């Protein structure tokens, strides 16, 4: 009989025990797998989120970004200056503000009249919702959102009397909006009544926004309409200026060029932002991932080692008998190693799907944190984590079987057989 077959028979001799041991390994393994996913998940997701926008440099007003987010003054002039740099391919200006969106059914099909733009609504309001109102340069629209219903801002704006508005799917569902609806938008102040005028918009489409937050609603409009809602026709502040570097130069060259021509603003490459995020915002999850990975691995090692040791102690007479029959030590050791492999390997493999299932639940739980983009994830599946998980489990299994193997291969045959006979 081969060592592998002997190990299999030993395990299947006590099926309940084996099932419980594999279940324990699987659950602890799932937790270890989750902590490995968490160890880099947020960083990977954050980088993916940044890169999916298609811009590799972000220009802000303060070095303290993103903790302190000051407005970038004279953003249009800045964008024009940056577009002239040879290292820069494309520039987009992003403006955001908080606004209240109200469905207005009082004039569903009337043509837009400039005189009525800032009137108060009369009747027919059904409900309203506070949203993040966004405006980006027209060239950046295709990267900031994807229209899923209706038309985009640029193609719809020319034929409309009222300014165009795009809303997120959640907002459309919440307010029962559809392309063609008329809505009233008023910029609001946090926790305070707003005296700013309401502006009527025509909803031209529903979009999936790249940076939509799970606890918020989003709407987008053109730069002119955005200024109209703020009642600041002369304001040219922006929250952020996005830059994509020209092929062949790269983000580092673009950052250097921007710093040289405009020392009053601070450009960040995606790498720099991810690095900052890694240093600050991600530190907690990196630490908890490291601590829990270490604890679960140590826990798994201890429990597997205890199980195997107890199993060997129960079978000392059997092991001594096998050795008395001439079975070499290395075959005994191989059988125990196989026993460990069946338990740890089985549990480790089950841990992968179980861990992923658990990770989706934990991710959902953590994403209830306020202010997170909907597309940001804490647990990201990557091959590195799977390989590391399997590697750590193999190491734990081998290490856990070391002591029982030592006991089994070093035991005195005659004394053990005698003890077993008289016990």
């Amino acid at each position, binding site marked *: 009989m081969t060592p592998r077959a002997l190990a299999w028979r030993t395990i299947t001799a006590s099926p309940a025990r084996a099932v*419980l041991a594999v279940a324990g390994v699987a659950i602890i393994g799932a937790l270890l797998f989750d902590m490995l996913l968490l160890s880099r998940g947020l960083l990977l997701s954050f980088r993916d989120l940044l890169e999916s926008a298609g811009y590799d440099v972000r220009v802000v007003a303060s*070095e303290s970004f993103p903790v302190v987010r000051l407005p970038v003054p004279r953003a249009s002039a800045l964008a024009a200056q940056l577009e002239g740099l040879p290292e820069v391919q494309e520039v987009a200006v992003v403006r955001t503000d908080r606004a209240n969106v109200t469905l207005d059914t009082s004039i569903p099909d009337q043509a837009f009249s400039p005189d009525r733009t800032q009137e108060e609504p009369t009747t027919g309001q059904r409900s309203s919702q506070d949203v993040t109102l966004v405006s980006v340069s027209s060239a950046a629209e295709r990267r900031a959102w994807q229209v899923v219903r209706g038309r985009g801002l640029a193609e719809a704006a020319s034929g409309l009397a009222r300014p165009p508005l795009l809303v997120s799917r959640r907002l459309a569902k919440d307010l029962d909006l559809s392309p063609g609806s008329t809505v009233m938008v008023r910029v609001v*102040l946090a926790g305070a*009544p707003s005296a700013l005028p309401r502006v009527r918009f025509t909803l031209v489409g529903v979009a999936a926004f790249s940076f939509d937050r799970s606890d918020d609603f989003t709407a987008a409009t053109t730069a002119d309409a955005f200024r109209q809602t703020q009642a600041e026709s002369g304001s040219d502040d922006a929250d952020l200026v996005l830059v994509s570097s020209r092929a062949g130069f790269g983000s580092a060259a673009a950052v250097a060029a921007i710093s040289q021509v405009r020392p009053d603003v601070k450009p960040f490459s995606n790498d720099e932002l991810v690095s900052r995020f890694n240093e600050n915002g991600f530190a907690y999850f990196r630490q908890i991932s490291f601590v829990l990975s270490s604890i679960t691995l140590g826990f798994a090692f201890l429990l597997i080692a205890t199980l195997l040791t107890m199993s060997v102690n129960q079978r000392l007479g059997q092991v001594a008998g096998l050795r008395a029959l001439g079975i070499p030590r290395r075959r005994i050791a191989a059988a125990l190693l196989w026993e460990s492999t069946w338990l740890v390997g089985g549990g480790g493999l089950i841990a992968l799907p179980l861990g992923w299932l658990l990770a989706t639940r934990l991710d959902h739980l953590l994403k*209830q944190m306020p202010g997170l983009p909907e597309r940001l994830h804490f647990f990201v599946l990557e091959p590195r984590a799977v390989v590391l998980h399997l590697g750590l489990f193999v190491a734990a299994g081998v290490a856990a079987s070391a002591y029982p193997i030592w006991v089994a291969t070093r035991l005195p045959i005659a004394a053990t057989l005698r003890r077993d006979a008289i016990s």
Partner: protein
Amino acid sequence: MPSGADPVPGVRAALHFFRLKDRHSARRAGRPPSKREVALSHSGRGPHDISGAAYNFGVRNPSRALATTGLGVAVAVLAWPLLARPPRAVNDAVAATAPVRQEPPSASLDETEAVLPELLLSRQLMEQEGLRPGDVVTLATTPAGTDRTQFRIADRYEPTPDPTHFTSKRLEARLHLPDLQKLVADPDDPQASEAVSVLNVALDRPENAEALQTAVTARMPGLSVRPTSRPSDGTDLFGVLDRFHQAIAVVTVVGSTAFLLALMMMRAEERREIVGSLRLIGISSRTILGEVFFEGLLIALGGALFGVGLASAAQGLVNRFFQWQYDTPLVFMRITQSIAWRSVVFAVPLGVFAGLAASWTLLRRHVGSLVRR
């Protein structure tokens, strides 16, 4: 500078920090001080952005609601215009680095230092830059050092620990409100000297926070009023983290229970012959189960107490390690009575249940199968 006054945030601004290099030591040595201003570097990224906050402030004509405040929940009243669109001087203050201009001091050292306003610097900033009380530093609203003011360091202070920013270096300064306002005020804004960013308010009756929020918002449009207590529905950051930790604890307990059951089954198997013998001499299954119950109870209690003791011993190490790593007095781990009791309440029944379940698999067998070899 009033000693012992509670630090109350007033005007918040990002400033740039400069130091008259070697002035202190040069004066002690009787040599003329260095006339060169040096911008402090931070990881090679240029001058520091530090947040300045007044610790002494006054408000003209405080409302009746604010005047009747006392102990209780603090409510932060945020001056929205300042936060949403900071004054231009502040905007300009946070900019990229630029060469520092070399300018001689306008007055002699002794005359200047005799009238210098005082400030407090955070312990971290003092330690990082090797500063001492009595040293003279310069704050400016631009990286180039224009619009600058010299201050004498009165003392150091420990910033209030902030769990949401525990990884950030607390490079901060506290100024008298008039000094800070003078430093950052927009000369074109006649209301600049009246503006503050934040007022902290303590209520006699904490449960009135919402009423105050409504009252102040209605009377002073433009202000944002926010209770500082955590929302009761657990939707804040720490509420979510609590639930995350609980979920991990539940998974760990489930995994441990499976292992425990497996171990107890092995333990019961070891005692198969003894149990068989006991039953052969007439001891009932109930008595054997009772013995197993009390044995399990004692072992589970011992294990639970050992676990609580181990965690209590570990908390000091964990806290000291992370406090050292992040240079903060924050407490990262605290074993409270409630947590200890919860652990015991979970662990003991689980241990007893595992022992009974494992023994039951033996006791339900025929006695002959137990003693057969």
